[in-house]
């Protein structure tokens, strides 16, 4: 690892290094397929098992890849460095601040567990997806896998809630995690499908968009999808497509209102309200946000330590009512990062956002300049997915185990698209 890091930052295009072997790349594609498609299952069928939460299929696929890559690196030492597979420096800076924050935790196990999962996906997952994506064809395969995953998730959720009348959100037991997952992947996949020349793909995109909106159980999902699709409408230049996607969005939102009395839509209806069930107090979520801001006054740099926000946040409610009605995983990702790792942690996370957003936007302008339909399609979808992820982070964090994989996927799509187009 040290020799990999010591060569990090070298100009990878001029470094003499053998390309990855074909069998290794096929292995990466297979493991990527397992990771992405199985992410739809979340922690099903062993939701309450801590061991399974750590070793679920996506995490296991990433772990397997790390092992394979380590063996490959040892065997090919000096011929292959793999630095081109690593994420941008900002990711390492963010992880470094997370590690430093451990100095302030009382619960070392929890902090280490959180950082372990974060590192596994941010570095291991990033390297896995980077290894799999080496050409436009592999990019399209990954988009296909992401679409498959989201279709499975949404379809089962609709069946479970409207068909069987269960309280779960398909394979997700929590509406906020489901909302972040779909709120990030749906704009990514639907924008990719809408830009296809085939009518069947556009129809699929429309069905996926409307179906996801109806199945949403959280405000976060609706916000992320709305912002993502609105951004898509702004970025694309074809008026007919703009009208189609806005119509689909309005149709989905309209159906939510029409189905207002249906039990399946009740969680969303309750989540959109500003007040608690008593109709008097402000929703606990917003009081929690204020508590996290108050925490920043005292612990601006130190934070509470990574993964340890629950140990401290109730101390910062001050005069605001503590109702204990906050639901699990209902957490503002932006404020949670600042509360846990301090302002420097938030700055490093924003550094990630700035770097990859610039990269994604530059791909759109490049695609317009070279007038390539395929490149434009991928570039736009990457950008929209990224915006949707940032919006989804508002109501439920992208850092959660099982959800982080989609955020990492988007970062890799942006990064590898840049590399592939650069070589062309």
């Amino acid at each position, binding site marked *: 690892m040290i020799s990999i*890091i*010591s*060569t*990090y*930052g*070298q100009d990878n295009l001029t470094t003499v290094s053998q390309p990855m072997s074909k069998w290794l790349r096929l292995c990466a594609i297979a493991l990527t397929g397992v990771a992405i498609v199985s992410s739809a299952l979340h922690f099903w069928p062993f939701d309450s098992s801590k061991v399974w939460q750590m070793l679920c299929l996506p995490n296991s696929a990433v772990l397997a890849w790390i092992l394979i890559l380590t063996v490959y690196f040892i065997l090919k030492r000096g011929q292959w460095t793999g630095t081109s597979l690593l994420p941008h*420096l*900002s990711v*390492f*800076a963010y992880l*470094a*601040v997370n*590690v*430093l924050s*451990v*100095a*302030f*935790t*009382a619960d*070392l196990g929890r902090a280490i567990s959180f950082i372990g999962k974060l590192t596994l996906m941010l570095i291991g997952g990033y390297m896995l997806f980077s290894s799999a994506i080496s050409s436009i064809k592999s990019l399209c395969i990954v988009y296909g896998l992401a679409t498959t995953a989201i279709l499975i998730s949404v379809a089962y959720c609709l069946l479970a809630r409207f068909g069987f009348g269960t309280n779960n959100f398909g394979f997700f037991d929590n509406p906020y995690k489901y909302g972040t997952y779909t709120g990030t992947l749906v704009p990514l996949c639907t924008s990719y499908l809408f830009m296809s020349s085939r009518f069947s793909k556009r129809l699929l995109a429309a069905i996926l968009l409307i179906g996801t909106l109806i199945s949403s159980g959280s405000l976060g999902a609706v916000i992320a999808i709305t912002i993502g699709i609105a951004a898509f409408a702004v970025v694309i230049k074809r008026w007919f497509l703009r009208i189609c996607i806005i119509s689909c969005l309005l149709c989905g939102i309209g159906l939510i209102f029409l189905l207002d009395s249906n039990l399946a839509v009740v969680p969303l209806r309750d989540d959109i309200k*500003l007040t608690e069930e008593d109709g008097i*107090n*402000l929703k606990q979520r*917003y*009081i929690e*946000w*204020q508590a996290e*801001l*108050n925490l*920043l*006054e*005292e*612990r*601006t*740099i*130190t934070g509470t330590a990574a993964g340890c926000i629950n140990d401290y946040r109730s101390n910062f409610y*001050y*005069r*605001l009512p503590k109702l204990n009605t906050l639901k699990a995983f209902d957490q*503002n990702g*932006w*404020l949670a990062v*600042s509360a846990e790792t*301090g*302002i*420097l942690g*938030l*700055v*490093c*996370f*924003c*550094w990630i*956002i*700035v*770097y990859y957003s*610039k990269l994604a936007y530059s791909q759109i302008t490049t695609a317009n300049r070279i007038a390539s339909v395929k490149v434009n399609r991928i570039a736009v979808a990457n950008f929209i997915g990224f915006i949707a992820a940032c919006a989804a982070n508002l109501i439920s964090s992208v850092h959660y185990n099982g959800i982080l994989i989609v955020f990492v996927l988007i970062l890799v799509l942006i990064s590898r698209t840049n590399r592939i187009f650069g070589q062309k």
Partner: protein
Amino acid sequence: MKEKVIANTLKLQRLGLMLKIFEFCLPILAVFLACYMSFRSEIPIPIKKPVVLIIASFFILIPLKSKPLRILQKIVAFYLVCVPVNELALQHFQANFFLFDINISYSAIVLSLCVLGYLLGKANSTNVLRDTEVINIVQGWILALVIVIVHMVLLSLILKRFYGYGYERNLNVLGNLCLYFLLFTVLREKLSSTYFRQVIVLVPTAFYTLVFFTNR
């Protein structure tokens, strides 16, 4: 005539040297004061695992050639230097001067020393922000501040409507964030120097070692 010119040149050189010494030493003095005052006030924010910070300090002391790793060292060094400043967060210097009550945060005193060092350095330097990564980090700072401010505004409006209170501390929070942004701005260039980075980190390292051994 010649002697006058030589004497003037020597004077200017001495002045330049003194400015450089002050520029170098003021931030270190500021960090030393922060560590001293934190230790004296029994470390309001407990450092439960100071070993982590001590190990991070060793990372700073390694001379690295790779540019990304040096940037990483800068960030870690900035964190290590800011922790003692954070310990002073809620402490103020209070005094009565004639009819005026003076109430200054200790963090602001630390910042002012660093700013003074920065201004003295600016007199000698014409460095312009060119490095892309540093520009991205600064933009990251601005984005972070914007995100926090937007949240503050939204929450102030909502809380005002529901309770009429609860958002009073937002300006204090914003002030704290601006303080660290300013600290980053004034220390950014100096932390690029390996020697300065290593020297300034020695002060908080000693502080963390003391915390470790005294179990504070």
